Each structure stands twice: as structure tokens, then as C-alpha cells.
């Protein structure tokens, strides 16, 4: 009579995170700071994207001991990242009972043809997308939450804006098509036709849509929420800033009050320098993480 790990249960947790900020943390201490700054969940990883970028090499799932330490440190949900296609890492994260798995382009992909079969896991998955077709392919594979990819570890919001605008405008376009045109659109989007019809009917994705990759300030948070994000992932933007707790708090406040410029202004005051940032346009193609996954 009790059904665990149904799609409704998986997607439902994301519903409860809406309007909130999920923060990258690398230690239990940072997890506690994130929780007291108002994070709705933490993403446990060994290095934030800015450091992965700096260090180079292969980026993998984090040490289970570190993830367990973070699970013990906080009561909010704990997420962790597996490499694209690395279903064994996902199985390990399931054994650790993390609350959400991010099949993430921030780590080095393990399979260049296949994403993880997310229906097979009892843990819900969040996946990145740069456009609607990619989002619907991930949902077709069982993802229970989508985040726009942006360009992680840069502190540059331009890619997040590009991806969120693209997803939004592709959703709006579907609503104008008739049944015949929707079949063609599904082919063009390379997405499951039933999901395409659902999006056309409802005017939104069937799962929660967050934004990630490049958010560094309260105004960035407000921008992405106004562009249609239902919540935010902030990676390097908090713990690579001068005063992480104050910045975390400010981004949380600006996410709740995204439509109120006076509140966003007040939240932005006196935070000190943001993270050291990279202009995405100055990066070479091989340095762009959003190109990973398809």
C-alpha cells in the first residue's frame, strides 16, 4: 500500500524547493553556513566549479565520507553530482541515500552517447539543459527536475540568460502550434511527443525548472527568477565570495522578493566583492561545460 520512489514523489521534492536557493558546499561547515543563510538544499561536492575549472583534469563524484559528513551536518536535503552516463556513481549516491542526484556537466562525462537511465534509481535526478528539447529528453529518461545549465564556475550570467530565455521562448512557441505541427516540433526538438504535447497544453515543463551556472549577485537572482526560473542553484557564487554567509542570505532574500526592486536593492548593499569571475566569451570551446551532454 506504500509506494516509494514514484515519479510524483520524486518530482514532489523539487516542488518543495521552489522559490529557494540550492548552494554548493564542500565541507560540513559550509553546509551549516548555507543552511543558516536560508538555503533550501545543499549540493555536496569536492570542489566548486570555479576550482574544477582552475585545476583541470577529470572531475568525478565526491568522496562518500565527505557526503556523509554533510548529510550529518544539516537537516535540509543534500544533493550530490554524478558524471553524465556514470550510472555506477549514481548507484553509489543512491546507497548513500542522498536526496537528489545531479547528473552534471560540471563533472567530466563518462559516456559520450548515453545519459543515465534515471527511471532505474529510487533517488530523484536533476539534469541540466540548454534548450527545451534537451530538457524533455532528460525528463524522458526519468529526470524529476531540470536546471538550465548556464556556464558553471564563471560568475558570468550571460549563458544562464541565453538558456533560460531559449527554454521559455520554445515553450511559448509550442502553445501556438496545432496537433500536426506539434508532431513535427517533437521531431525537431528530438523529444518524446507526449511530453511535447503536455508542454504545449500546460505552457510549462512537467517538472520544476531551476536555473544554474553564473549567478553571483542578488540582482542576478532576481533576473533569472523574472525570466521564469522557479528557483536557483548557486555554485561558486557564494563560497568564492568575500563574505559567503551575507551573500548567501542576500541571494535567498532576492530570490523570494525577485519582483520587488527595493528589496533586491536592500539585499545587495554592502556585500563586498563577488567571486572572481571569468567572461564566458573569452573562454575557448574546450573550456565550455554547457556543451557537455546533448
Amino acid at each position, binding site marked *: *500500500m*506504500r*509506494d*516509494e*520512489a*514514484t515519479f*510524483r*514523489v520524486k518530482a*514532489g*521534492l523539487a*516542488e*518543495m*524547493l*521552489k*522559490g*529557494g536557493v540550492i548552494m554548493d558546499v564542500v565541507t560540513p561547515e559550509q553546509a551549516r553556513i548555507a*543552511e*543558516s543563510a*536560508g*538555503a*533550501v*538544499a545543499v549540493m555536496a561536492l569536492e570542489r566548486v566549479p570555479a576550482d574544477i575549472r582552475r585545476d583541470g583534469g577529470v572531475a568525478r563524484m565526491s568522496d562518500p565520507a565527505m557526503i556523509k559528513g554533510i*548529510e550529518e551536518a544539516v*537537516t*535540509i*536535503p543534500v544533493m550530490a553530482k554524478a558524471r553524465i552516463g556514470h550510472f555506477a556513481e549514481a548507484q553509489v549516491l*543512491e546507497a548513500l*541515500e542522498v*536526496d*537528489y542526484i545531479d547528473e552534471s556537466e560540471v563533472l567530466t562525462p563518462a559516456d559520450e552517447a548515453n545519459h543515465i537511465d534515471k527511471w532505474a534509481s*529510487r*533517488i*530523484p535526478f536533476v539534469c541540466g539543459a540548454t534548450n527545451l528539447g534537451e530538457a524533455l529528453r532528460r525528463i524522458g529518461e526519468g529526470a524529476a527536475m531540470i536546471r538550465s545549465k548556464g556556464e558553471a564556475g564563471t560568475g558570468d550570467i550571460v549563458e544562464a540568460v541565453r538558456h533560460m530565455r531559449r527554454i521559455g521562448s520554445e515553450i511559448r512557441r509550442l502553445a501556438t502550434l496545432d496537433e500536426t505541427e506539434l508532431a513535427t516540433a517533437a521531431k525537431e526538438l528530438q523529444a518524446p511527443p507526449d511530453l511535447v504535447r503536455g508542454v504545449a497544453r500546460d505552457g510549462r515543463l512537467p517538472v520544476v525548472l531551476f536555473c544554474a551556472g553564473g549567478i553571483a549577485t542578488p540582482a542576478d537572482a532576481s533576473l533569472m527568477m523574472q525570466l521564469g526560473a*522557479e528557483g536557483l542553484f548557486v555554485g561558486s557564487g557564494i563560497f568564492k565570495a568575500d563574505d559567503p554567509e551575507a551573500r548567501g542570505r542576500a541571494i*535567498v*532574500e532576492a530570490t*523570494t*522578493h525577485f519582483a520587488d526592486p527595493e528589496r533586491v536593492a536592500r539585499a545587495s548593499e554592502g556585500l563586498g566583492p563577488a567571486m572572481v569571475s571569468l567572461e564566458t566569451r573569452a573562454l575557448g570551446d574546450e573550456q565550455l561545460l554547457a556543451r557537455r551532454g546533448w
Partner: protein
Amino acid sequence: MLVGVLALQGGFAAHARMLRALGAEVREVRVPADLEGLDGLVLPGGESTTMTLGIEREGLAEPLRVLIGAGTPVFGTCAGLIMLDRAHLGLMDIESRRNAFGRQVRSFEADLDFPDLDGPPMRAVFIRAPWIASHGPGVEILAEVDGHAVAARQESRLVVSFHPELGDDVRLHARFLDDVRARAEG
């Protein structure tokens, strides 16, 4: 009939959709001024730690105590149940245990017997859900899972530890709106 939904964070949009479908006018509540003139209030699910911090930041605790203390009907789901307990807003004589069923992997849905409602059992979605570990004499327990209280009423306050807003069973929302209407007209 104007119903507020606390919208600091969490499942407020799903509640708003369901309430609007049942004919209520809905206002999202983020600051104390948003509480003016409400006939009823929903405290949605979300992360109870985050929501507690938000209530503190916005100075909402006292205005909520005044509004709900005056008998305005309130419906709390999951984290909303926790917000009303003795350790938080202190508006219900219940002690809740957070994440009582365990981490997300233990989240579940089940058919819940709800003797208070007409019709078949309710399909209830429990997500990192709390339960009511103990309660005072003024609290009526409405439903249980494995002997743990997951729904209760105390005067005009109705709480459930699951998420009726995520399904398509509107009976609890309709019941809540009956209370709101009765008080608004009375």
C-alpha cells in the same frame, strides 16, 4: 473570499492553483502587509528551516499569531504543519517530528483512510514528511500512517503532514474553503 498562501518558498504555486480552481481569490504572502484582509491562510510545504528563517527575516511571526489566533482558518501542509507547532509559531498544541519517515528515499505515496472525508481513501504524497509525535487534549487526530498521526484539527486550524496540493483530490482544500466561507459569512 480571499485566501493567502505563504510564498516565502515551497509548494505555494500548487496550492494557489488548486484554491483558484475551487473558486477562491488567492494572494501570495511574503510580507506582513500581505496578511491584511485575508479570510483564510495556507501554510504550504517547503523546507521548515528555510521557512522559519524567512518568517523571522520578514517579521511575520507576530502578525501570523494575531491573524490565526483571532480564528482565521488556516491550513498547514508538511512544513506548514511544523510552522504551527509548539516549537515554532506555537499556534497548535502539537509536537511535530521533522523528517520523521526518513530521507527522500523513504518518501512515499499511500491510500490514506480519512474518516472525516466522504468517499474513498485519499491518495496522499509524503515527502520527507513529519508526523505529530504528541498532542494536547484540544487536538483531534484525523488520520494515521502506521500508528503515527499525520493529520489533525484544532478549532479553525487544519494540518496534514502530506501534500494534497500535488494530487488531484481537492476534498481537503474544499473542506478548508468551507470553513473560510462559513467564517467570512458568519
